[in-house]
């Protein structure tokens, strides 16, 4: 298929469909050739997410998922999984756990980094960067079609790992498809010669959007479409989904 050599990253909500599906989903994703995984730490009020991820988060919390339980589920993950693993979640649960304690735990487990949509780059830079670096964690920032060039340069400077390129002005799972606006935006970013690679997320739902998104970017992230697939087909259907993408 077209998008060979491009990174496929999958987001899923930990604790969904069932509380203890976390490990199986991660292992199956790796087995089926996924290059990177974002493990979603569910939050009661996920502002940047659309209905699919919100519903899976609500369900996961109802199933009893907590930060502590997730860390326990992941305790031995590095014995069976070697691809990069990131935790993606909102800042408040991390703040309550204690940012330093959270980072320390991630390090112990072998988590590579964090994506925290509501921790702005400026606050990170001033207050939390030292802690993240102390524990060797990368922190991934988002950019959008509205992000100014100056700010993108700043984010590039602060970032280690990659930049999460939000495909369009939307919450997750909107799935409007990609038009000229996105194509121009992808091109504009690729000509900026940033030092971090870019991975596109939001609105990637099938092999077509994956191919479009990765024309210039290094990879793409699929979240809502994968969760929808799990909802409809169950936790044993991971490989079916991945094979529709590539």
């Amino acid at each position: 298929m077209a998008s060979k050599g491009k990174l496929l990253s999958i987001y899923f909500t930990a604790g969904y469909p069932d509380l203890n599906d976390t490990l199986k989903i991660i292992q199956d994703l790796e087995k089926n050739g996924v290059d990177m995984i974002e493990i979603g730490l569910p939050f009661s009020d996920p502002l940047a997410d659309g209905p699919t991820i919100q519903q899976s988060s609500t369900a996961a919390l109802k199933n009893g998922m907590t930060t502590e339980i997730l860390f326990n589920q992941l305790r031995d993950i590095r014995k069976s999984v070697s691809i990069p693993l990131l935790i993606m979640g909102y800042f408040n649960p991390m703040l309550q756990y204690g940012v330093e304690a959270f980072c320390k735990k991630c390090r112990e487990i072998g988590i590579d980094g964090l994506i925290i949509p509501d921790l702005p780059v400026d606050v990170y830079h001033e207050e939390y960067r030292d802690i993240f670096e102390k524990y060797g964690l990368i922190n991934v920032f988002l950019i959008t079609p509205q992000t100014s060039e100056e700010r993108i340069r700043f984010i590039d400077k602060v970032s280690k790992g990659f930049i999460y390129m939000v495909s369009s002005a939307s919450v997750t799972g909107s799935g409007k498809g990609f038009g000229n606006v996105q194509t121009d935006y992808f091109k504009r970013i690729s000509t900026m010669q940033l030092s971090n690679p870019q991975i596109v997320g939001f609105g990637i739902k099938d092999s077509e959007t994956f191919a479009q998104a990765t024309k210039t970017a290094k990879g793409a992230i699929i979240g809502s479409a994968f969760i929808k697939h799990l909802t409809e087909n169950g936790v044993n259907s991971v490989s079916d989904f991945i094979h529709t993408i590539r």
Partner: protein
Amino acid sequence: MTYHANNKGYYGEFGGAYIPEMLYPNCEELRQNYIRIMEEPSFKEEFDQLLKDYVGRPTPLYFAKRLSEKYGTKIYLKREDLCHTGAHKVNNTIGQILMAQRLGKNRIIAETGAGQHGVATATVCALMGIECIVYMGEIDIARQAPNVARMKMLGAEVRPALSGSRTLKDATNEAIRDWINNPVDTHYIIGSVVGPHPYPDMVARFQSVISEEIKWQLKEKEGREHPDYVVACVGGGSNAAGTYYHYLDNPDVGIIAVEAAGKGVNSGESAATSALGKVGIIHGSKTLLMQTSDGQITEPYSISAGLDYPGVGPMHAHLFKSGRGEFISITDDEAMTAGLEMAQLEGIIPAIETSHAFAIFDHRKFKQDDVVVVNLSGRGDKDLDTYIDYFKL
């Protein structure tokens, strides 16, 4: 030492803008322009004119003689209940609609709980001929039917928030999502001193007209601009912010904030954020909020829909934490009783939110010659059904 926001929107450790990058351009545009726009002579002139001719300002500062006699102190009521649409909320929506126009926005979104802010937003949008979409929790839509009808009659579209607990917090989430999806043409009129910077400061400035008027009105009546105490109910805290605003940095004025204890602070059904909340982040602001030990935001409860918010504006979190403000929680029963007493002593039926503020006189003694100004933030028409049910009227 100041209790106002600094230029990054922090009140002490509280405030800031903890927002996803998708919201950054919207908030940044507002942050860079709001003070400049508010200080433009043409803006001030239009704002003042509308407050005078349309809202009906200045609202009276009324000496509540019988209430004062009963509690042995001098109680003044700031009559925000007499504002057009029935509460202080419209001071802010007038300000923000003018702001939106100057920023070139042609679509307005808002969140609402009980519907008061939704009605105030729909009102100014009708006034200016601008499209208006109000997000309201599905459960609130069912229990606040008259306000839903008002918004529709004013030409607004009321969109149900179907996620989470389907109340105010979820309506706010939905409004924020709408703003993420419509970053260019849309202005989000937040109804309280909550949300990311610059909202808490901007809304407080628009509401500050309340204490600005209290100053000169009190001077006329008491020969001094400064009362001994200012009292207001706090949900998110916009009427309180307006009432305290010009007194924040004056240590001679005591600040009293009244929160909703619901069925009791420790009943599990409460909205007393200062007592039950911990530092956290809600709707883009670092503040005190009610949450689980795991950092999930919990559902508050109060008989009054306007106080039913799991957080509190960062100004108030700072007033609490620093000890500058005295926080009192009042139960549903105490508030309802105080509302009835206000009706029968002064002939004023207050909103249930406001009734909480009046209930403090049973809790806290004031000196005979203390001057206590209570903000009568809203009128009780919208709450008639609740009063009828409660008192079997």
